[in-house]
Structure formats: structure tokens, C-alpha cells
């Protein structure tokens, strides 16, 4: 993940907090003074439907805001894996929320981060932070951005809401970082 431009797709059911993941990663990139463009798939989306967000982080000006072949995919449900696994760049990275995705990636060139996000969120006490658990795991293993920037982004995003929300989201972030595993292509 040391390329100067990283294209990330975040995909799952509407309501899983896809847009929030994209928002946090993009904010953290801004904190690190990188160029960033975010894009949400805008269609007849609704809670329970499939949704995806795209974030491009770059050291230079981002040209196209549209991602054809992502370098990394954060996958929160099974249909999203079916759709985006074939699209990933060679030697890309895929993060699976193993609570919702029951199969392994079929490709052998991918780095695979696994996190039982929905279960971990349940244990923390709020199912809705499963998305943040995924962010924690993603950052821990890819080191794409620093965990400090991500923490700051979480604080910024929830700052005008209840302080308790910041607290539980930070807890989710660290739980994701600790309770996830990363399989390199050879081990896959």
C-alpha cells in the first residue's frame, strides 16, 4: 500500500454505515494533508439495499473521482464481496466483516484482513459501531493513515453530538485494531 494513490471501495447494506466509513477515512486523509475525493453511489439506495462509497487518497491531485479497479475494498456483506472481488487491482487488499461474509476470497493474490465486526460491536454494546470496528482493523493492518488521524476524524465527526458517541466509537476503533487478523497472499 505504498503507492502514491490509493483507491478504496467500501461496500455493504444501506444502513451499515458505509458512508460514515468513507467520511472518516477521507477526513483523516485531510488531517494528514493528502488529496482526497469521496463519492457515494447515488441511486435508489435504502436501508437494506446495497450501497457503496469510494474514497481516493493521493499525494498528487486526484484526476477521476470514479474508481474502476480499487486497491482496497472494505466489504461488510456477502453480495459486496461477489461484486467487488473481481474488480480489485492485482495484489489488492480486501477487508471482510466475517460476521456477515461467510466465504473466503477466491483470488490468491489478495491480502485479506478479517474482523468479526458485527460480533465485536455487539460485545461493545452497540451494533451500529460495526463499521468503525472495520475502520480500526483496516488502518491497523494497512497503515494507510495513522490511527491518531483516524481518532481525530472520529472526534470531529461526532463532536456536535453526544460525547458518549465519541467514546463508544473510539472503543470500537481500538477493538477492531486488536481483534482482527491479516492474511498475506501466500497464507491465503
Amino acid at each position, binding site marked *: 500500500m505504498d503507492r502514491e494513490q490509493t483507491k478504496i471501495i467500501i461496500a455493504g447494506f444501506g444502513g451499515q454505515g458505509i458512508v460514515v466509513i468513507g467520511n472518516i477515512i*477521507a477526513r483523516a486523509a485531510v488531517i494528514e494533508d493528502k488529496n*482526497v*475525493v469521496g*463519492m457515494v453511489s*447515488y441511486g435508489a439506495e435504502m436501508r437494506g439495499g446495497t450501497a457503496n462509497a469510494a474514497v481516493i487518497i493521493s499525494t498528487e491531485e486526484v*484526476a*477521476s*473521482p*470514479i474508481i*474502476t479497479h480499487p486497491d482496497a475494498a472494505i466489504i461488510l456483506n456477502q453480495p459486496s464481496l461477489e461484486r467487488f472481488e473481481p474488480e480489485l487491482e492485482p495484489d489488492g487488499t480486501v477487508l471482510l466483516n466475517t460476521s456477515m461474509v461467510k466465504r473466503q476470497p477466491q483470488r490468491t493474490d489478495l491480502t485479506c484482513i478479517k474482523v468479526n465486526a458485527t460480533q465485536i460491536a455487539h460485545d461493545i454494546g452497540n451494533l451500529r459501531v460495526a463499521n468503525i470496528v472495520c475502520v480500526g482493523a483496516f488502518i491497523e493492518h494497512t497503515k494507510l493513515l495513522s490511527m491518531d488521524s483516524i481518532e481525530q476524524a472520529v472526534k470531529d465527526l461526532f463532536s456536535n453530538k453526544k460525547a458518549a458517541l465519541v467514546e463508544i466509537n473510539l472503543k470500537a476503533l481500538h477493538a477492531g485494531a486488536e481483534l482482527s487478523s491479516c492474511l498475506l497472499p501466500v497464507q491465503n
Partner: protein
Amino acid sequence: MAEAAVQAGCRFFAGYPITPQNEVPEYMSKRMPQVGGVFVQAESEIAAINMIFGASAAGARCMTSSSSPGVSLKQEGISYIAAAELPCLIANMQRGGPGLGNIRASQADYFQAVKGGGHGDYRLIVLAPASLQELYNLTMNAFDWADYYRNPVMILGDGILGQMAEPVEILPYEPILELPEKDFVLDGCKGRKPRVVKTLILKPADGLIAHNEHLQEKYKRIESELSLCEEYQTTDAEIVIAAYGITARIAKGAVRMARAKGIAAGLIRPITLWPFPNEPFISAAKTASQMLVVEMSHGQFIEDVKLAVNGQCPVEFLGKGGGWYPTEEIILEKIESMAAASATAVKGKL
């Protein structure tokens, strides 16, 4: 865009919801009351544009925003506003057409915006930003140009620009021009001669001819004074791409990829679509061997490019309507096939 308008002193917004630009009225509905401005969700696009006519005649900096089918409804009002020479900003975040179409991005309203979608000989100043920072900056400038020339200005964006997120530096507003006093405003005539803002000119018999001549003189002046364009790696380019708005941004990525493969590609990106920046195309047509127009329509912008190029070099086309957008890879493929064809042609001559 909405915040830039507020910063620039826009205090009247009227609009009617339509995807993909709902974020603008949503933001304005919250923001306008905070700054002592007026937000109106009108009963229709037609009502909204006519409210803009009124607000502008009353002296307010004002704007409306919509997307393709909504902008079609506004055309009568836009023609009236242009006729009455009232300053205002109209934003069109284009979506797929014709008809109700779809809610994906498109650039198929180019003719409507640039050639005059309403009746009569009138012109809009048309701006085509390619990033959110540029959208912010141009929105501020738009109000100045509108006031300076007493002419409506249109921002011609698209559904991608309308939906993407990017960091934007919120700069304070500073006028870029010395603005004339608004001596047309209808704000009560106590102590002065009454003023009239109207578009019906029946008397004298040649009054409308004179008014048209006056408008045309103004348009000529705007053409001679206002033209913005970005050129990217055109100096030594063999293949020059012409594109505007979000398409130009995607094309820039393709130019980088082509350069990495040793193909001398470049990009001309008009920022003002009217006045159209002819000069860069005239010079590029002399130095480049081929030009490629990319747009999200079946060929509208290409007509102005061809007028500027005036047969001096071949102009190829890549574009589709209905929500299609080009990827960097698709544009690169086209560039490569053009480069290959050109190499074969050169070989043939030898």
C-alpha cells in the same frame, strides 16, 4: 457552492427539489435564515426562476439551482431575465436526459446552456468547474460577473460534481471587479424618477431592435473581456483532448497515463463555455496532429471545438449520453488507437 454564494452576499434563494442537486437547497434552507436571507421552496421551478427575476429587480444577489428537467422549466424565465438584464446565478447539475431521464451524471444540456435554451437572441455567461474548490471560487466570481455585466450567469455542473466530496478551503469573499452601482433597482422612487424593469417593448416600433443591438454590443464586450481556460501539457502534445467539467478531470488522468506510455497527449479545458475560449484551440490545431473531444453527451461541445479548430486538424469524438461517463482507461484506449492510426499514416507516407 451554497456556502460560496452566502459568502458572496447572496441573500435570496428560490428552488424546487430535484436530484442530484438537493444538497444546495437543503443547505440554503438552514443557512439563509442565519444570515438574514430568504430561502423559498417554490411550488415549481417556473415559480422559482420568476422569484429570482423579482429578487434581482429588487436589488438582491440571488440564485436558483436545479438539474436538467428543472432547468428546462426555467427557460422562459431565464430568457426574461436576460432580456431585462438582471444579474443572478443559475446552477444546473446536469443529469441524464432527454425527458425525465435518470439521476446519473450527464453533459447533454450544453446546447441549452450555451446556445440559449429559451427564446430570443440572448446569452448566458456559462461556467464549467471541474473540482469543488473551483466550484466554490467560480460561484463567488459568478455574482461579480453577473453584477458587472448585468447578465445572468449559469454554472453548468453535473451529477458527479454534485455528489462528490472533496476538501474545500472556505475563502472569504472579495470582489474581483469594481462593481457598478445598481441603478435599475426597484426600491421605491421617493425623491427620484420612477424606474421600470420590463421585457415587453412595443413602442417605439424599432425599440426592440435597438434593445437587441444594445444586448449584442454587451455580449461582444463580454466575449472580448472574459474567457477562462486551463491547458495541461499542450505545448508538445501530438494528441490534444478537449473536455470540460468533470470529464476534463477524468481526461487529465488519461493524459498522465498516456504520457507514462510515451504518447504526447495534452488537454484543453474551457472553464468559460460562453464566452468560448477559441484561442487555445486555434493554437493547438496548428501544433497538434489530432484532437479528441470527450463529453458525456452524443456531441454538443464538439461543435464549438470544431468551429474554433476550423478544419485545421482532425477532431475525433468519444461520448455518450444517458448517464454514461468515461473512465481514464476508456479515454486512454481511444488515445492509443489514435496514436497507432497516426503512426500507420506516417509510415504510409514514407
